């Protein structure tokens, strides 16, 4: 079910600093701008930018410009590049009608890397997402990106998953137009591939419906 | 907060001026470093128990238990430690005698042990002029000879053993050092600490008689002021000389001990062990009619094997120790124990708290009463 009728449509793209959430938030924002929407993109940071939690908040509306911060409980879609971050954003901004699309590959914080803490299992994360959302999709976007030879393209795969899910009032063609306008030849084909794989993967996959 | 092993070492030993700088805690891990005459904890290890605390001769020292484990007999406070034989010995090798501190016994025994394949390496202390001496692990006769001579400065030589034992091609290692270093090795032997105990490679321990050791950088800075030429050797002749003899290339300088004693390491004040009671063989200098000889105490079968072997090959000659010398040695040894106990109780204020010594208060009282 598309969230397209909601106004404003609040999309949060979250991950860890360095994963490139800002890039895809800009591309999505520009695609929506071209469709005649008012788009505001805000950023929130966790403890730090370098390796810390980051999120782009997109406020998309037909009526007016909205502020750059999502009020509590108003997130419609959470697109997560990292599973713990998806759960974190859902916890703060989610509500029972929120939909979640998330990558399942973890990025370990320092506490885990040095052996002082344990990263929650994917099952636990899924359980948490199940309790707090309407529907959820899970994919290993990192694996797909690594398969293309570029782990940094995880964000582009997730962008494909988002557009391919049908939750956004914009289709693949329009998004691909943005890619063509912003990338040069050699980077363009790889980004298009990553995007395309995200689209096809989410369409093949099972959506986890919760209520 | 639960006490960590490394922190216990810092609080109970280093901060209380009990650290002998033997080096047993260094070279096992990246957390302890020996630097500039001090043991430094550069980072915290989270383990509640570690080899550092287990090997340290100034933590939880139970002489009774250790003696039983090593020799099968009770610890003797009156004698010069457990012994099988006590006599005088000296090298028959002219080259060694010329270079050595006294009569060259240690160097000769090491040469013999190496020749016969008892050992492939030796951990010794090398001193160079006025720098802080350093523990080294050596393999050749030349290198062993180069380490002959006492420097009287406390050196973390056990670190060299800890590191050397990690080298794969060293399988049988000998050690010569001071009583505190020897104690650390004895603790290592008795340790139930699993895994990575370097003691497995230790074949022979020779301990040197020791009254005290000097601190770096205090003493070395003093020397730099007093002695301009390179130093070849030191000696402290027996009572009543009361001087430190410093031999440079050009001459010998006598410095009154009164100027030297301020540099004695505080930890030495509470040391009970004159003759390195937990070695295979303990060696000291001779005096009086046997001035040109080493005093030798053999304690273990391994020690006996080495000494008798060397004697059979004519590398050392032996003679009996004069009764008077032995009596004097036993008195000196007992006095050091009593002084140590005295000073410990002065520090703690109670005979029930003997710092690192695990000794019943009753026994301590008895010893002090004599």
């Amino acid at each position, binding site marked *: 079910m598309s969230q397209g009728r909601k106004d404003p449509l609040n999309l949060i793209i979250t991950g860890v600093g360095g994963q490139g959430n800002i890039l895809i938030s800009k591309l999505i924002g*520009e695609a929506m*701008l071209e469709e005649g929407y*008012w788009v*505001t*993109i*805000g*950023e929130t940071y*966790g*403890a*730090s930018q*370098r*390796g*810390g*939690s980051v999120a782009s908040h997109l406020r998309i509306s037909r009526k*007016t*410009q*909205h*502020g*750059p*911060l*999502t*009020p*509590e409980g108003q997130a419609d879609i959470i697109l997560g590049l990292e599973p*713990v971050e998806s759960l*974190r954003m*859902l*916890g*703060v901004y989610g*509500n*029972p009608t929120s939909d979640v699309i998330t990558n399942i590959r973890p990025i*370990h*914080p*320092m*506490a*885990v*890397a*040095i*052996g002082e803490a344990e*990263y929650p299992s994917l099952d*636990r994360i899924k359980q*948490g997402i199940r309790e*707090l959302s309407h529907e959820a999709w899970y994919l290993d976007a990192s694996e797909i990106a690594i398969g293309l030879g570029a782990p940094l393209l995880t964000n582009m795969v997730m962008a494909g998953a988002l557009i391919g899910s049908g939750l956004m009032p914009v289709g693949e063609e329009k998004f691909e137009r943005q890619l063509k306008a912003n990338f040069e030849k050699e980077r363009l084909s790889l980004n298009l591939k990553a995007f395309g794989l995200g689209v096809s993967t989410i369409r093949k996959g099972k959506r986890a419906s919760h209520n | 907060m639960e006490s960590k092993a490394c922190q216990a070492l810092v609080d109970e030993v280093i901060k209380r001026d009990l650290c002998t700088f033997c080096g047993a805690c260094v070279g*096992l*891990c*990246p*957390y302890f*470093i020996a630097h*500039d005459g*001090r043991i*430094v904890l*550069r*980072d915290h*290890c*989270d*383990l509640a128990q*570690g*080899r550092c605390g287990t090997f340290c001769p100034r933590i939880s020292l139970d002489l009774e238990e250790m003696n039983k484990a090593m020799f099968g007999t009770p610890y003797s406070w009156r004698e010069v430690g457990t012994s099988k034989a006590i006599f005088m010995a000296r090298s028959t090798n002219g080259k060694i005698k010329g270079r050595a501190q006294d009569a060259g016994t240690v160097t000769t025994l090491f040469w013999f042990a190496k020749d016969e394949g008892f050992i492939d390496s030796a951990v010794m202390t090398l001193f160079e002029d006025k720098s802080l001496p350093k523990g080294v692990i050596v393999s050749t006769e030349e290198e062993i000879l180069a380490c002959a001579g006492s420097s009287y400065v406390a050196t973390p030589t056990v670190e060299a053993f800890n590191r050397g034992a990690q080298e794969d091609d060293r399988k049988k290692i000998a050690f010569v050092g001071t009583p505190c270093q020897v104690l650390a090795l004895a603790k290592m032997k008795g340790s139930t*600490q699993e*895994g*990575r105990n370097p003691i497995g490679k230790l074949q022979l321990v020779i301990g040197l008689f020791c009254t005290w050791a000097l601190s770096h950088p205090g003493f070395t800075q003093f020397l730099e002021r007093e002695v301009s030429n390179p130093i070849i050797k030191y000696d402290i002749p027996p009572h009543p000389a009361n001087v430190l003899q410093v031999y440079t290339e050009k001459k010998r300088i006598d410095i009154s001990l009164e100027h030297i004693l301020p540099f004695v390491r505080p930890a030495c004040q509470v040391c009970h062990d004159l003759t390195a009671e937990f070695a295979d063989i303990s060696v000291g200098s001779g005096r009086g009619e046997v001035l040109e000889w080493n005093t030798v105490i053999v304690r273990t079968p391994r020690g006996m094997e080495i000494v008798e072997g060397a004697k059979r090959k004519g590398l050392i000659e032996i003679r009996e120790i004069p009764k008077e010398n032995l009596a004097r040695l036993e008195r000196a040894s007992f006095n050091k124990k009593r002084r140590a106990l005295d000073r410990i109780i002065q520090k703690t204020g109670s005979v029930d708290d003997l710092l690192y010594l695990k000794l019943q208060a009753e026994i301590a009282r008895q010893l002090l009463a004599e």
Partner: protein
Amino acid sequence: MSNIAANAPNTSQLLMGNEAIARGALEAGVGVAAAYPGNPSSEIIATLAQVAKQLNLYVEWAVNEKVALEIAAGASFAGIRAIAAMKQNGLNVALDFLANLNLTGVPSGLVLVVSDDPGGISSTNEQDSRHVAKALDLPLLEPATFQEAKDMAKWAFELSEEIANACLMRSVTRISHARGNVTLGELPHLENQARFDISRRPYASIAATAPKFHERLHQNLSRMSEIYERSPFNWYVGPKSPDLLIVTCGSGWFHSKEAVGILSKENSVGILKLGTTWPLPKGLISRYFLQTPKVLVIEEIDAFLETNLKELSADLTTGRTWTFFGKASGHVNPFGEITPDFIIHAIADILKVNYVSRSVDYQKKSQTIIKESILPRDSQFCAGCPHRTTFWAMKDALRMDGRQGFVVGDIGCYSMGLASTGFSQIKTVHAMGSGMGIASGLGKLNQFGFNQPVLAVCGDSTFFHAVIPALINAIHSQADFLLVVLDNAGTAMTGFQPHPGTDMNAMGAPSPPVDIEKLCQALGVKVMVTDAYDVKETTQKLIDLLRDEGKPRVLICRRECALIRARKENPLYRVRINPDKCIGEDCGCERFCTRVFKCPGLIWDRNTKKVKIDEAVCSGCGVCVEICSQEAIFREANG
């Protein structure tokens, strides 16, 4: 993406607030732009630098904010419209100049944009810059939308010339760094011609002339106020006689609008959005005040507007009183940034309505889940960061030195030397260069029995910004200190901008670098250089320098920022673990490389109980090879 030089009026782009400001300046025909990097202001000048060549601008990353403002003023004195941009701390640095510039005035448009950082998200403080406008009697503008950021920036130049004085524009993170729809205007076709009129009265206020200029400033204030009455940057939405009047500015506009919408109170709550917040347009404000008994003021950081409105209301001779709500009443948080949720709750409280963002059940569930499954992500140095290795060397050297020495610092990525990622070495952080100044003081306490070694750290950029005068001071006073300059070849924290020590300028052209080592030699201070990656050498040099006490000493630790390097070159090494040699948790290691050294490229595997390299994160610097005591990490040079 954003193209602020686009010659495409009436088209729309998704611009960052800072980009919109830059575009506004372009539309005003700006010729010169100068700044010092500072979040959240950096993009203003960075964006202009990118189009400088194309549009014939002169753009500079100046050595500090005072010089940046002086550069802009110089341009203005010669008839060129100029813009200077900085964060709130930068305004403090420029204040001495600004507090004299306001008295002399400027002939050509000069706009000073200050981006405040409410909540101090990337700052050492959260300071409200607006007070400066009131203190210096300068006009203050606050954009509330992205469109306004552009339009206001453009108009600010006109206002500046109207009153022949500098104009202050205050933005905040939520406007500067967020993006929104901006319709572009026209780019002017003018040729900027610079010329200084030597015949006119000098731009100077000295001795007793200040009161005269001060009086003129006050007269200007009245004129500004009149201009503001008609400004399109002030607007009202809501009923004619609202139960509650919200007066807001800046980012408060979006939050207020959203809050009123969420509470469905459009029919009883009015919002007066002011873009011109000093001086206040009294007539306009009093007209709306007269329609309501209650006023809620919403703004970022201090109760600046709130207090000024209260002042204004006291002067209104109507006999009426108002109930004010805002920071003083506790409805709006007086510290930290304002958020839509704070505002919603404030309005709900005043209007006595119940608001619940989510059901109690959901709220409880989400709190439990967050607590149980979420891990904090601590600040840390990047993999391969030379600061990690330098602080490691400092930690070891100070412990080995044994005299309880410590480190005082200033601002940059290396400020994280405060935290465990930097082994908690730094003990003070305040302003740019303040570590060196503090060390200059600590280094003279010998007569009071002080014998702890003092290390001051600074970056290559802060060295030029503020450390040099403090260093000269300490050299002349023969203070006992060791200055460690962390030279990573750029102003890394804010986005790798160049500075006088680098060989390039803001516009990408080559520039002769000032050599820090040579400068120190010229100052007559003992200086040594070391490679930050060479931990052994750096530690030894530190030990030696610490021992060489009683005088000033400098150690320059050189190594390019790992992120800058990664953009240009392949990693130095391919780093790998030999799991057979890794002893992990056992006595002898206890996870030394991950638990103590803490490089994010090293991961502790709880299952295999061994360390492994995170290939996606490892930068290939190879330093961990020296850290491991078991030789379990090895490296191969990258061909």
